[in-house]
């Protein structure tokens, strides 16, 4: 067909001169990028020759904001980094602050158990979003509703604990804001009971689906040594066969008391990452069931040191000390001894770390996040080369980035 001298001919000329290569910008508004990611791809036919992810579209300066807030206020913005598992962020930040304060050994066991419970529920809720939206990317619409329904039940538990579905801000220095409310455990039992049949449905819908398998198997492979070199952590690293899990390697909040397996696979393709996450949800539920058993025992959920945690309300009218501490905490928060510390937790996406520096003031001097999503996403530059442009969607989905965390 003759195209004359119009723009189409010019475009064909350009492609011919560049050996059939053309540059295609994917995003930042592409629906499969799960937020705002732009990937500038150089393609030859349908094969990707080069991929350059561009990030920063969601940069909100959270680390800068945190430096200007009290120690206890900073968790408000910190929970908004990884908005699919906000509790994990707050937990990690407070672990770092508690280490600096030297009170990390005085957290009551019940508070630790609730922290573990909510962290594992966050993992399940976060993986539900990944599984649901990842399925949609590949045209599997039904799974989305099954996953989001389960997630909603878990978000109901967060709402009961802290008052908000997504950013409950429930964790405090020294423990929790308050004990679990009346009726929480019954709701939790409901979630535990619905989990297994629901996941059986989801697995039958997605895991054995031949279309999904065709799309994911042998796509986005990365070798074990490259995965370490690119700083991958979490399910992406374990799908390459390296059983590194912060919960097991550096236990925190009493994870050493619970039985769970570190799931690994060796294929290291998108399907392996998919299976690792699915099995991890089951392991998370296994931990939730173990925590549930110890929650029947009542106990304190706050460290008794009222220098950091608000004194019980009933003591304020009776004790001068309590009144002073309450006033100081509300008006100027607490001070943290000078020093720097790194604390890490196993988030749904990998090793989430906080490097916190204090100069002795009532605000953090520096709060540096180790964002697992950012390091996991970076590897797209490596794994996309040589793959089909249509598989780009699969690879982004299998890395599970959250842009609140990538861009912060």
């Amino acid at each position, binding site marked *: 067909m003759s195209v004359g001298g119009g723009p189409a001919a010019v475009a064909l000329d350009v492609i011919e001169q560049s050996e059939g290569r053309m540059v295609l910008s994917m995003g930042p508004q592409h629906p499969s990028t799960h937020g705002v990611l732009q990937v500038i791809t150089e393609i030859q036919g349908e094969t990707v020759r080069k991929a350059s992810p561009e990030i920063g579209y969601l940069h909100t300066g959270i680390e800068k904001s945190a430096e200007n807030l009290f120690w206890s206020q900073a968790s408000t913005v910190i929970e908004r980094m990884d908005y699919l598992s906000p509790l994990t962020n707050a937990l990690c930040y407070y672990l770092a602050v508690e280490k600096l304060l030297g009170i990390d050994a005085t957290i009551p066991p019940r508070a630790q158990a609730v922290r573990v419970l909510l962290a594992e529920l966050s993992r399940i809720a976060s993986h539900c979003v990944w599984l649901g939206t990842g399925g949609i990317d590949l045209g599997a619409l039904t799974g989305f509703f099954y996953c989001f329904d389960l997630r909603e039940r878990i978000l109901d538990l967060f709402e009961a604990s802290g008052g908000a579905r997504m950013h409950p801000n429930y964790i405090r220095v020294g423990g929790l804001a308050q004990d679990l409310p009346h009726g929480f455990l019954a709701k939790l039992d409901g979630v535990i009971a619905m989990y297994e049949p629901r996941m059986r449905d989801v697995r039958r819908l997605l895991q054995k689906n031949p279309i999904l398998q065709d799309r994911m198997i042998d796509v986005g492979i990365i070798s074990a040594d490259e995965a370490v070199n*690119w700083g991958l952590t979490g399910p992406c690293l374990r799908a390459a066969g390296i059983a590194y899990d912060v919960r097991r390697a550096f236990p925190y909040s009493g994870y050493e008391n619970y039985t769970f397996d570190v799931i690994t696979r060796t294929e290291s393709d998108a399907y392996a990452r998919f299976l690792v996450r699915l099995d991890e949800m089951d392991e998370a539920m296994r931990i939730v069931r173990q925590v549930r058993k110890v929650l029947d025992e009542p106990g304190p959920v706050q460290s008794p040191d009222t220098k950091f945690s608000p004194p019980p309300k009933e003591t304020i009218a009776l004790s001068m000390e309590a009144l002073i501490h309450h006033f100081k905490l509300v008006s100027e928060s607490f001070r943290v001894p000078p*020093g720097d510390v790194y604390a890490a937790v196993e988030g749904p996406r990998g090793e989430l770390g906080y490097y916190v520096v204090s*100069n002795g003031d009532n605000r953090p001097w520096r709060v540096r996040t180790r964002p697992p999503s950012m390091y996991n996403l970076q590897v797209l530059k490596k794994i996309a080369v040589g793959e089909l442009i249509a598989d780009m969607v699969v690879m982004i989905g299998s890395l599970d980035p959250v842009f609140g965390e990538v861009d912060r």
Partner: protein
Amino acid sequence: MPSSQAPPAGATALDPTAVRPDIADARILRVTSDDVRSTLEGLRGDGFTMLLDLGAVDYLERQPARFDVVYHLLRLPDHAAGVEEIGTPERVRVLCGVRADATVVPTVSDLWASADWAEREVFDLFGITFAGHPDLRRIQMPDDWEGHPLRKDYPLRGVARERTPRPSFALKSNVAAGTPAAGRTAAGLQKQIAEVRRQADGLKTDDGTTR
């Protein structure tokens, strides 16, 4: 708007890492920008296969090194390995002091691929250059941004920038440019719409089609 981040009185010789309490979170090495590269090369060869994170801290008034570039390393096997083989891997934190008048550090992006974006981010937000980095440009802030937001002397709400003049809304609407505010009331608009309709009617031919 000035920043509220001025260090508290008496904290001018600021180095919190010097008075660090006894926390066993990592082995800590303090180096200068001259020997950071050789130290990190040595650690890489020694089995620290993963650069977990690379960040920076601005200590503002600390002398002689105003900044710290912080490397978090982890000793992991670079082949498939079980939980027992990994055990509790060793962590190392390398703090590299950087002087305010020479904010250049050699890159490690050739030693660890994960350093690529991390170094770009430190460059973007702190203005520390990594010599030898293949693609050192801003990553979080827009390409034409001025200043480095995570520096302590950068105000929280940013410096005032000249605003790009926006095209007037009036030009795009039925309201003629320069119409005084009174003409933009509902009644005024209706009057103008009626005028436009009247003009359009005037263009119509006898059989109702537009000329």
